[in-house]
């Protein structure tokens, strides 16, 4: 494959960013929108060409193994002779899959935004930022080395910052964007230190070198240990910290719900489908190394499992529909993390079970989740567009007014709940199978989370579309959105319906060899039953307005409040950052600087000043005093001379 198409995939969004960013102010908004959409459409087409030709052309498969193709790899910065940062394009199954996901969702969002953002100020800026994000995200997934990934990792962080803060006149948007950036930046610090450690021992940044021979990496790290764990484990856990930040794992999840302050299409693109799965992608990218760093996989699994449950519980108690979706995103990403965590790099466990199933399932879920979560977010956007509020209390009974949104949203809900034949069912089934095979506990735990997922999604669905009509509809009748917004919904809904039937294992596995997916019937039956039960419960509670939810809430008021307040994580962070870091550390350092260091320097000046004013008393202007001093001096000199020489 030539390098023209891959370069274009990156270059077009970058060019669009520069064009719209620098010249956008001078252009009419229509032109900007069309340019943005066309650019992204072209990129999507190219990405599909590249990805599909990678999957289907036989030249990329040798002995049944798909090859990792370094399309190009240019030196960007050389730290030492061996430690060189390249910018390149690494094409392999997960990369190709991500290319398709990112460009598809991005294109949908571009299209959708044309309708959604039509009346907003800074429409041109919005498209420029979207292009910047697409460029950064694409750069991230095609990274040939971990440093390139870090570069684009930061760039997606900043595009996310810019887009969350798009409505920069609102203080809430500003603080949300700041929070998102700083929290992920803090996580990136871990990532950076991890890279520092890893690259010091391996003397390379290159993914291919590291993952093709993880044993070598382990050997290079030697027996070095730090606080009881091997250096490699530390490095990998620290790198995962970066992933935890971007993918909003506990305890670094706090930015994601606030990030919903951004425009809804942005939430769909960045905070549901693409950027937040960067952490999963990172772990998948380094998978062989993670497998060999003992303990790090367990860490990932545990973090994922706790986060999944936590987010699911919190999602049950939110009022803002975007927040519900945000927590559902956290929960689903945690699902992927757990699934990755239980995967192994041994082909078969106990001689029959495929060890890399978790990996495959995780990637599969990443794919399906991107589609249905983007669908849900865009649906939520359409609702917000129609009702002008984020709260479900302002909605209810909308199914009659907005049929397209209703049906597509329902499809999304069914997909995420894991109902056959929607896409979520297939990926979730594979993930649960992998977890059950690893340890029954993870399986049971995550099945419970899956049940909760079904419950809160249908709670949301019913509260929006059933329950009771908001009386304000009489003044302001909500209606379906324009075609630019409906079209992406329909497309994504269609994809969510059929994506499950893609033989994903044929394309993406950890060792890049095909794997034939088959449904694990016991697991599937269990999860399906749990999901149906949860939906039934939601139906009973929320289909029509009734006092049942109120009573449930009053049964455990403390639990409800805690869940509603997200178990006080924000307050804890607020306390740590404002009270301790700002209030104590920064203030005391600033005080120390002014009153100790600076005062010492001023003190020197003061001492000099005092000394000189003490001395200047001699220069009183009184001539007679001068004479007296002079005379005494002369006498003294004479005396001294005399003493010395006689």
């Amino acid at each position, binding site marked *: 494959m030539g390098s023209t198409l891959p370069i274009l995939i990156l270059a077009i969004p970058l060019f669009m960013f520069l064009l719209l960013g620098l010249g956008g102010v001078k252009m009419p908004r229509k032109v900007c929108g069309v340019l943005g959409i066309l650019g992204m459409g072209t990129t999507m087409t190219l990405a599909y060409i590249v990805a599909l030709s990678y999957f289907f052309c036989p030249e990329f498969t040798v002995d049944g193994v798909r090859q990792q193709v370094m399309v190009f790899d240019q030196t960007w910065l050389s730290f030492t002779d061996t430690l060189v940062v390249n910018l390149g394009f690494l094409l392999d199954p997960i990369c190709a899959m991500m290319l398709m996901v990112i460009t598809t969702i991005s294109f949908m969002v571009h299209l959708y935004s044309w309708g959604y953002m039509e009346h907003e100020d800074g429409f041109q800026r919005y498209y420029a930022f979207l292009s910047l994000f697409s460029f950064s995200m694409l750069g991230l997934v095609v990274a040939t080395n971990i440093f390139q990934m870090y570069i684009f990792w930061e760039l997606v962080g900043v595009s996310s910052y810019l887009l969350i803060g798009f409505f920069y006149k609102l203080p809430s948007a500003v603080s949300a964007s700041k929070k998102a950036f700083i929290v992920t930046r803090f996580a990136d610090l871990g990532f950076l230190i991890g890279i520092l450690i890893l690259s010091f021992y391996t003397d390379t940044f290159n993914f291919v070198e590291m993952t093709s021979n993880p044993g070598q990496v382990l050997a290079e790290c030697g027996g070095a240990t730090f606080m009881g764990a091997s250096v490699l484990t530390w490095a990998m856990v620290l790198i995962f910290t970066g992933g935890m930040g971007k993918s909003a794992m506990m305890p670094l999840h706090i930015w994601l719900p606030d990030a919903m302050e951004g425009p809804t299409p942005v939430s769909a693109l960045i905070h549901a489908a693409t950027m937040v799965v960067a952490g999963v992608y990172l772990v998948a990218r380094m998978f062989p190394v993670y497998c060999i760093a003992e303990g790090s996989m367990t860490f990932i699994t545990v973090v994922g499992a706790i986060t999944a449950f936590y987010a699911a519980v919190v999602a049950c108690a939110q009022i803002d529909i975007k927040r519900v979706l945000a927590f559902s995103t956290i929960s689903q990403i945690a699902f992927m993390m757990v699934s990755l965590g239980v995967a192994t790099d041994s082909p078969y466990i106990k001689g029959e079970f495929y060890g890399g199933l978790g990996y495959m399932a995780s990637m599969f879920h990443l794919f399906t989740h991107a589609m249905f979560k983007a669908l849900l977010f865009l649906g939520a956007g359409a609702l917000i567009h129609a009702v002008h509020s984020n709260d479900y209390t302002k909605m209810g009974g909308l199914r009659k007014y907005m049929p397209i949104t209703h049906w597509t949203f329902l499809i999304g809900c069914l997909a995420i709940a894991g109902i056959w034949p929607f896409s979520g069912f297939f990926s979730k089934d594979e993930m649960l199978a992998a977890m059950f095979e690893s340890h029954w506990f993870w399986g049971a735990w995550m099945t419970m989370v899956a049940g909760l997922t079904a419950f809160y999604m249908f709670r949301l669905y019913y509260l929006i579309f059933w329950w009771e009509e908001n009386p304000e509809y009489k003044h302001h009748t909500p209606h379906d959105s324009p075609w630019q917004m409906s079209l992406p919904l329909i497309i994504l809904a269609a994809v969510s319906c059929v994506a499950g039937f893609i033989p994903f294992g044929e394309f993406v596995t950890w060792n890049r060899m095909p794997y034939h997916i088959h449904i694990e019937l016991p697991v599937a039956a269990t999860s399906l039953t749990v999901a149906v039960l949860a939906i039934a419960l939601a139906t009973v509670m929320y289909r029509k307005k009734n006092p049942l939810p109120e009573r449930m809430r009053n049964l455990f008021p403390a639990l409800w409040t805690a869940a509603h307040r997200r178990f006080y994580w924000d307050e804890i962070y607020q306390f740590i950052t404002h009270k301790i870091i700002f209030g104590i550390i920064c203030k005391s350092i600033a005080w120390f600087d002014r009153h100790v260091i600076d005062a010492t320097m001023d003190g020197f000046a003061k001492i000099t000043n005092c000394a000189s004013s003490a001395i*200047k008393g001699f*220069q*009183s*202007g*009184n*001539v*007679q005093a001068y*004479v*007296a001093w002079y*005379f005494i001096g002369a006498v003294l000199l004479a005396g001294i001379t005399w003493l010395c020489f006689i």
Partner: protein
Amino acid sequence: MDLSILWYLVPSVIMFACGVFGFITRKNMIAMLISLELILNSADLNFVIFNRFLFPGSMDGMIFTLFAIAIAAAETAIAIAIIINIYRAVGNTDISGVNKLKF
């Protein structure tokens, strides 16, 4: 009984001591100037005495004294001009009123 050098130096020392005392203690600028003249005079006298007793063959001490007298005259003239000027400005000739020349 010889009139040796010491005999002549003693009055000179007394004159000098009086000059110093007067210059330090008197407040009136003219009185200070008078004290100053005493000091100068004592120095002049010393030149001459040393010349006469230690180097009887030469006359450099005397010439120096001549110069010193000339300079003393010049200095007194200027000093008195200044004092009169200050008197015009301040209204008296007290040295304590003239101490701005500092710092």
